[in-house]
């Protein structure tokens, strides 16, 4: 059983939490005129990597707050816990974020606010 450090309550047993699956899936709107196939990347396709996985957790039997966890699926080691809306800061977490196929998916590009779209391509290359 994992021990998860809730950013609001402190370390608690896994049984107090529920896992919300893959993190950092940007949500496109219907106005974004994606094809069904491109939209399916957002709606259906989820990663199940061997190694570092960025996922969402909720302290269901505690403060009910959501947060992000960078967890190694092979070792179950938790590398980093960071707030919703933030990006990972650990080296391995950042690498997992940048290497994710989603960064280049049409669904994610479409979901970016217009102001960030120009920066998007350059940051992906960085």
């Amino acid at each position, binding site marked *: 059983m994992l*021990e998860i450090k809730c950013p609001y309550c402190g370390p608690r047993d896994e049984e107090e939490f529920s896992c919300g699956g893959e993190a950092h899936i940007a949500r496109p*709107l*219907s106005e974004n005129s994606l094809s*069904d196939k491109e939209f399916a990347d957002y*709606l259906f396709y989820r990663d199940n990597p061997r190694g570092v996985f960025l996922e969402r957790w909720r302290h269901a039997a505690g403060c009910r707050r*959501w947060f992000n966890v960078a967890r190694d699926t092979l*070792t*179950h080691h938790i590398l980093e816990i960071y707030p*919703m809306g933030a990006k990972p800061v650990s080296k391995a977490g950042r690498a997992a974020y940048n290497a994710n196929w989603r960064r280049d998916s049409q669904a994610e590009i479409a979901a970016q606010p217009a102001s960030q779209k120009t920066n998007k391509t350059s940051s992906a290359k960085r």
Partner: protein
Amino acid sequence: MAKNNQKNMTIAARSSASIDSQTPISFTFDGRKYQGCKGDTLASALLANNVHLTGRSFKYHRPRGIMGAGAEEPNALVGVGTDGRIEPNLKATQVELYDGLVAISQNRFPSLKLDVGEINSVLSRFFPAGFYYKTFMWPASFWMMYEHIIRHAAGLGKAGDDHKDPDRYEKRHAHFDIVIIGGGLSGLMAGLQAAKSGQRVLIAEDQPQWGGWLRACEDIIIDGMSGQAWAEQAVSRLQEMENVTLLSRTTCFGYGDHNFLTLAERVSDHLAEKPAHLPRQRLWKVRARQVILATGAIERPLVFAGNDLPGVMLASAAQTYLCQYGVLVGTRGILMTNNDAAWHNAFALHRAGCRIKVIVDTRQNPSPALIKQATDLGILTRIGSGIIAAHGRLHVARVEIAPLSEAGDALTGEPEHFDCDLVMMSGGMNPVVHLHSQARGKLKWDERSHCFRPSTTHEAEQSVGSCNGSFDAAIGAKEAIAAARKAIKANSGEAAEITLPEITATKIKWTPMPIWQIPTGQPAGQGGKAFVDFQNDVTANDIQLAVREGYHSVEHVKRYTTTGMATDQGKTSNINALAILARERASDIPSVGTTTFRMPYTPTSIGMIAGRDIGGLFDPVRTTPMDKWHRAAGAKFEHVGQWMRAWYYPKDGENIQEAVIREVEAARQYAGLLDASTLGKIDIRGRDAAEFLNRIYTNSWLKLGVSKCRYGLMCKEDGMVMDDGVTTRLAEDHFHMTTTTGGAAGVLDWLEEWLQTEWPDLQVYLTSVTEQWAVATLSGPAAREILKAAGTDIDLGDDNFSFMSMREGHISGLPARIYRISFTGELSYEINVPARYGMALWTSLMRAGKNFGITPYGTEAMHVLRAEKGFIIVGQETDGTVTPYDLGMGWIVYDKKPDFIGKRALARQSMGLGDRKQLVGLRTKDPKQIIPEGAHAVLDPNQPPPVDMLGHVTSSYFSPNLGHSIAMALLRGGHARKGETVYFPMLDGKPPIEATITDTNFYDPKGERLNGQH
């Protein structure tokens, strides 16, 4: 049986520091009465009574005796207890004796000494490895018959007949800085270091007493004391310290992620009188910052023909019985060993009066000092030799000893025969690496000690002493202190100075000879059986056979032969099995690898894992504020999630149909009253509350007026309906949402998720108020008159209080919010009062409605009433694959708004396909016939299989108001099929039910009754 052992040891003759020979204890084994001493295990007491034969083996029903002295025991499995408290498959070596203990042997019929299953042993040629897989594969239809016979013949002991466990179990969570598993020399040493340094320490010991091997070892001197005296002193020092928790009789059986350990504490199993305040066992769920494993080692048996006979025992076990329990397990002994250590076990027994006739060492060059010592004691030695067979019927009586080649794989001379009543065997030591491996630590093969030792760790844990392959006491103690200091440092603590005690013990070279099977001089498959796994009756031949048949992976061989799969999980057998496998594959042991070590380390009672979470405490039961009234009225209840809801209120011996018909008719003709308190209710506030609802629901919410109600459907992001309910605007920035009873918690989580993860910019606050409001729904033509009679300050006129609006005021003097909404199609008011007034409201309405024919109705009548109107129930008409369009509710999807959850998904191409299952009504040709819910629809009842199926019935009732049955169904392309005839084939051989596809709104399609005007 052991007639050759005439010297029946008397209680008075026994002496050892661990038992109290002044306190005799009576017990029975297979109905016969025996005496043991306080401090005995069942095994030591049986041996003291010269009882060696304790069971029959699993497959061949061979006579078996006690082989070990602890958790490793494969043979001596017994059932303990009487009546409902019989616990099967306990190891006699781990059962503490108490007065009046009743034990029975297992796996024998009719008795231990005469067992008809022994025929399996004669027929063993026909029971090879994989026997069941090979034999019962075909014909497949015979499996049912085979299974019955196999299940009867196989298996180990039987549980008590009464399926109720009369005992109580507890659970406890705990956190420690350092957890030490094992209370022998290394564990206690690590414990002293950690405890003196101020760490919060738990030390757990599997046995009732502390000290581990120190208690069985006669030659160890620590700081001038015997090992046992030192252990007692160490424990008493630890007991005085507040930061130390000592648990004996406690087995750590699981080691999971993030240093999570599960321990089983046997609190009162060993007591003759079990005090009422104590649980039987306690489950400890422990989180440790650092773990130190000091779990010791288990001796390996040697694999030779007849090695399973009673009287053949591990050398260390023979010494344990002597030194710890004062029991001499034989009178004429023979030792076979591949290492130095066991020589000392034999010397100890010899000095105590068991004449060791021969020491057989498989090595060509054991230490000359040992040989001299043996010769001085008058013990014969046979060097470079092995026991090639042991003989005897119910007890070992004779062995054959023959010289071996240097590699130990062939005989080099003729066998000699020796009489005996005890064979001690020692094949080297296996460190107990189970917990280390459960914690995903890696193992390495030690080429010197020929055993697996821990290498790298995965969790914050260290192994010390014998379980780390450090069998020397002084080295183990040093290792323990170093490990404790490392753990203290990792915890940012400061290690106190403690002095390493002075330890003197016989110097032993821990370098056994790698010999995994003693040759028999006969071709494989012939000669006596040489057992590898005693508990599952797996022989060396079985493993050879498995390899010949193509099973090479250790995991495959394990499952094919079942080696290592019994309740002892191969504690004595695994290494021998994989060494033989390696030999047969012409490979080496490290390349073969081990099977996965899994929890539990030893069998663990399910009762303890369940703890108190059984019966009424298994899951909470939620009741409404009006629950007592329903009970007093004789209502029948149904479970809806955790809620208990009144199902129907039978009167004067009515059955459910009669009661529901009466309730449904009353609600349409006069007035019905429903307890709707269980509806999910969520209070939604904040600047952006309306915008939030606009995104959550499929319809439009921005322009809903204050005090107005609106029905909404919410979809998942894939466009499938997930919940529905009526939400009311209480103020510009304040809404009251209702959800389905079962969906309440899920909807709250869903809303929170979107607010926190996708729209954190929205200012919205959610509070569950399900239990804060009691709700009585008053429905029917007389509803308005009853409210008036109950007394209200609200103007109930249509002009002031129209359909789909809310008014706040008082009913019978109780503060109330009344929602004029309808789930029945009648004039209907949902009256909400603070929960504490729920009962007052209910009784007051019942009183006020008495002259108007008010009738309480339950959930069953509610279902019929809503079905008459074609109202859906989420979860009944929907199953997660149904869109609003499929339900014929396209009118509630406002796709002109920029966004709502599911909007883009509903625009997918696949959503527009005409063959989606769509909700329709059904009318049976015979108006009295009710189609069973779940029945499948077909167009042609005579089509030969496979039959094309259109869909299934979701709701089906008899409608007394309409005088015919009604049903709803999800049918492929159903909306375009109205008027068509479909058939519902029946399972019971009756003719198919014929029905016509209709609209779903069966009753009052124009909705005139909503205003009470008709």
